């Protein structure tokens, strides 16, 4: 029995070490570098162009990439409106109405089930930083105090706020 066990272990070692597949580097494989979160909003000093804003916002809302042609078209629409914030609200509202694909937003139940997580996730998703304690407290209190507030309006606030225009 002891001999059998020894042979089995040796056999497994032989296969696991000796037959290890040589990994080839795929020349067409592109990956994303790990990027640290911002420490605070003060780190953001550059204004996003309309193209960048729309592209990033679409990715944040849909968790999908927008094609360059579509980004250009949406950018034209936003460029044609003088009040950019108003234009952004209308654009976000259009995205919220899309059926396919649909925006990826937590449900109201999910938001209220774990408010702290919802806040933290929203800050990281949109502002690429963690909320300060004061920010977390404000949102926790605001969401709790307003039971009719919908999660999508929190996302709209983030997607149209000034900090989101910067990186």
């Amino acid at each position, binding site marked *: 029995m002891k001999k059998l066990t020894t042979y089995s272990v040796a056999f497994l070692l032989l296969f696991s070490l000796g037959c290890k597949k040589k990994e080839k580097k795929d020349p067409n494989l592109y990956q994303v570098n790990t990027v640290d979160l911002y420490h605070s*909003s003060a780190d953001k000093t550059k204004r996003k162009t309309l193209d960048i804003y729309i592209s990033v916002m679409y990715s944040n809302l849909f968790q999908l990439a927008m094609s360059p042609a579509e980004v250009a078209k949406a950018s034209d629409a936003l460029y*044609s409106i003088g009040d950019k914030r108003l234009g952004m609200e209308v654009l976000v509202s259009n995205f919220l*109405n899309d059926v396919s694909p649909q925006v990826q937003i937590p449900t109201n139940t999910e938001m209220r089930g774990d408010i702290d997580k919802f806040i933290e996730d929203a800050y990281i998703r949109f502002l690429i930083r963690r909320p300060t304690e004061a920010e977390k407290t404000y949102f926790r209190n605001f969401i709790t105090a307003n039971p009719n507030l919908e999660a999508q309006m929190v996302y709209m606030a983030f997607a149209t706020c000034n900090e989101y225009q910067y990186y």
Partner: protein
Amino acid sequence: MKRKDFLKTAGIAAAGAIAAPYILPSGRLFAQSGGNHMAKHVIYVMFAGGVRHQEVIDQSYLTEQGASGAHNLTQNMFDFVGGTTNNTVIYGPSTPNTPINNVIGQGTSFGSIEAQGVTFAETNAASRGHYGGFNSLIQGNQAAAQGLANKPINPTIFEYLRKHAGFAATDVWFIGNTIANSVPLLNHSEYPGFGAEYGANFFAPSTTFGNSGQQYLSDAKFHPEEQLDYMRYMRTFLDNQFDNYGAALKQIGNTKDETEKIKEFMREMFTKGMNTVINTNVPETQAGGQLAGKGGGDIAALAYSMEVMKKFEPKFLTLNFSSVDVCHGNYTSYLQNLHMCDYLIGELWKWIQSTPPFKDETIMILSPECGRNLNPNPIKDQNNFLSYDHSDTNALRVFTQIVGGANVSGIAQSKLNAQKGNRIGTPTNPVANIKDNVLTIGEIFGVRNLIEADGRVTTSNSLFDYM
């Protein structure tokens, strides 16, 4: 408190609120009545794209091209120089002669802009280029250092009016004919002390309500007011946090109510559709008209300007044309577009003079941003007509027209009446510069001295000074 005392106190308080002056953004006290305004509305048309003096003022376009006869391409704006009505338009031997309906010109009950107003027939442009010219028209400055694709380097008339006359954001509009050529950048400068917070609301209707807008702006989800209020509270918090650490980003400054009214306007426009909006406001685009089925930036700019006027009744609205810029390579198309733009002006002034609250209460000013060369380039069109660029001194020769309704007041009334129907300026004695339009508009709204005191206009004249 007794009911009688309460009513008395409330009445005094209400009267005080109405009568009391309030502090303007510039920090100045200003009467709320707007009593020092010479007109309730000013419509400012940047009749742009590069308009050659010879076609419009001289009406000599055919003789210059080797053909014969003088004809009036711009019959709604100008009377025929031959002295008698001549509404025949001849584009050239290979192009059908299809004059557009004469709306207000000679032979109609209205009378052309020239007949009703004052024409500065030999005016200097400040620039030979489009963007420089646009900037001069709205900055009142030569703007020699103005870079292409950059915001205006000096405050614009939009900002002067909002800052000094206390106009609300939806009182001041700019309707552009395109998003090309940096036109959307013109609605405000980034000059210190001015900027976005005093800027004009802007649409480029051919894009805002065209294909791009249709795809990305027309299907906005409806949010109840309560939800929008929540959103604004949270966003204000986020903005305040960012202002503490980062840059404060200025916005146009539409109030909550103005914002929702603009959104409502957009929904209404998408529901109507562009064809309906254009057909309604520009009758010749309807079936059987000379512009049947025709669209384009200039027509859309006019049609949506009229929609903005109906909805917001702005105190000041600027719109621009530029389709005549085809003159670089097709003179015949230039003539056709010039004729079309003249028709659009005719429709606009006719509509203004028949539609409250604009009827009799409006002053309209129009100028090209630059002219065109004396001599042609070698490019020939289907009629063997040569084309014109804009780089020589002839490109600095333009015109300005100003016309007002019956109820305008002050020197606007006295001078427009005194000079009604006159042409001011000759080739040997040019009068006025397109830069003067800014102080003219400022004077109409009672803030000329404040604009001059800001020190960023490079003229000390308004058009009224020359009358």
